[in-house]
């Protein structure tokens, strides 16, 4: 008895002579294949060729440095608590005297790891960050042969001084304008702070 009324009884009737020859079927298949040779290819040759993506595409993360080259991240953990995939872990350490040029705040992330296999690239970490330290960029996370290689540490996440990652396209004009205002603590580098201290207060 059929429940769905959609079952079909398989018929195994004997093939005719032309069918047994298989030639028409083979020719039909070849015709489809050859027709596709003249169509536009939907694939591209990545990485030589790159698809066009939006300027706010959410790809691989970057941990930004400030203008003086100090790491902005202070390991506050808000990105990790915002992360719906629980992809971010970190461990903090205290900045020592003389490391002001390396880290902005008295606390910094000694270890900062994002598991790219867990990450869903939603951008909530970027939204949660109070220090403008983490941004998603338009870079695509490359594949790798092991799972361990997909856990990105600070070596891959922190931007290098030689090749800073430009994220200005991801920020609203008002934010970019605000960041020029050196009156705010948020925008001061350790050099600015030193200058302020020398000038009186």
């Amino acid at each position: 008895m059929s429940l769905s009324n959609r079952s079909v009884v398989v018929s195994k009737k004997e093939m005719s002579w032309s069918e047994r020859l298989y030639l028409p079927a083979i020719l039909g298949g070849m015709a489809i294949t050859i027709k596709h040779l003249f169509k536009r290819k939907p694939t591209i040759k990545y990485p030589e060729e790159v698809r066009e993506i939006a300027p706010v595409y959410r790809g691989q993360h970057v941990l930004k440095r400030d203008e003086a080259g100090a790491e902005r991240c202070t390991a506050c953990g808000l990105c990790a608590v915002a992360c719906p995939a629980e992809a971010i872990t970190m461990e903090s350490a205290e900045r020592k005297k003389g490391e002001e040029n390396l880290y902005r705040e008295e606390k910094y992330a000694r270890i900062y790891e994002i598991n790219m296999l867990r990450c869903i690239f939603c951008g909530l970490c970027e939204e949660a960050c109070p220090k403008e330290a983490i941004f998603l960029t338009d870079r695509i996370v490359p594949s790798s042969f092991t799972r361990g290689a997909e856990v990105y540490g600070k070596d891959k996440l922190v931007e290098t001084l030689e090749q800073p990652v430009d994220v200005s396209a991801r920020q609203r004009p008002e934010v970019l304008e605000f960041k020029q205002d050196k009156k705010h603590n948020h925008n001061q580098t350790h050099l600015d702070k030193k200058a302020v201290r020398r000038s009186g207060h």
Partner: protein
Amino acid sequence: MAKVTIDGITIDVPDGTTILNAARMIGGEIVPPAMCYYSKLKTSGGYCRTCIVKVTKGSEKDPRPMPKPVASCRTTVMDGMEVQNITSPDLLEARAGVVEFLLLNHPLDCPVCDQAGECHLQDLAYNNGKAETRYAFPRREFERRDIGNNVQLHMNRCILCYRCVKVADQLTDGRVHGVINRGEVAEISTYIDNVIENEMSGNVIDVCPVGALTDKTFRFKSRVWYTKPVDAHRDCDKCCGKVRLWYKGEEVLRVTARKDQYGEVEDWICNTCRFDKKETSQWTIEGPSKISRDSVISANHYESLQSLRKATKEQLANALPHGEKVQAGQGALNPNNQKQ
């Protein structure tokens, strides 16, 4: 006995009760926030002004309203008194002003501060403050200072609530901890690097409503919401030995006293329990601590579905009689709410 009405809820309280304590007897959302008042410390309160309320009727005999908002932690109830807290928009505006003043010199370094997540000033600012500051002058700055081996003082963050001074005064002998200078330059001091060596001195960490006095053994170890609080006890000859252990994985990162719903400790603990006993084997574990669902500490800790269902049911039951007044989450966990 005196009959007092707070936000339309009437209660009989003994003579001499403060408005704040009468409100706490009622419970729920109408309890004014308090930054300096601490029920376990004598003569505390009266400094921060966050607990201000509007007295619309002085008493049965003298029904005139009080001309200005009064500090509810220092004002005792009169028979027939009528008080407005959250029902008065003027008062909420005034409280927002108080919060603005408390935050005037606060560095707002929450991403760095170890107190973030259990900071009363954070809660207060979120619930009662405004999103922006109008203050454009440099905030006062101090060097951070060690008070003994285990306590660190960040004077930048201090709101001068005097709770730690009261602890030093009332729990320890030979007080070496006080407030020097006045007004804008006032600061918590230990009279020039006199360390606190008393066994109960670690309690200043627990009473500090902000991150001014923090545990040095916990410094930058973890954010509060990544640690898991567990109630435990041990036989201690100096204190009650009832504590809360804060675990990260298998490791005890921090030991604090147990705190009630107003953030006050249930019982003081000694420095040995607080700083030296950080092994699970040294404690008898009672079970996970009850943390309010609204607290960030409960983030990423999943409770059983059963207890969630129960909390939702309670919340619905509480929300219905009040109409829109009850905000999501608040009040539902307070057993006193049943009385209303």
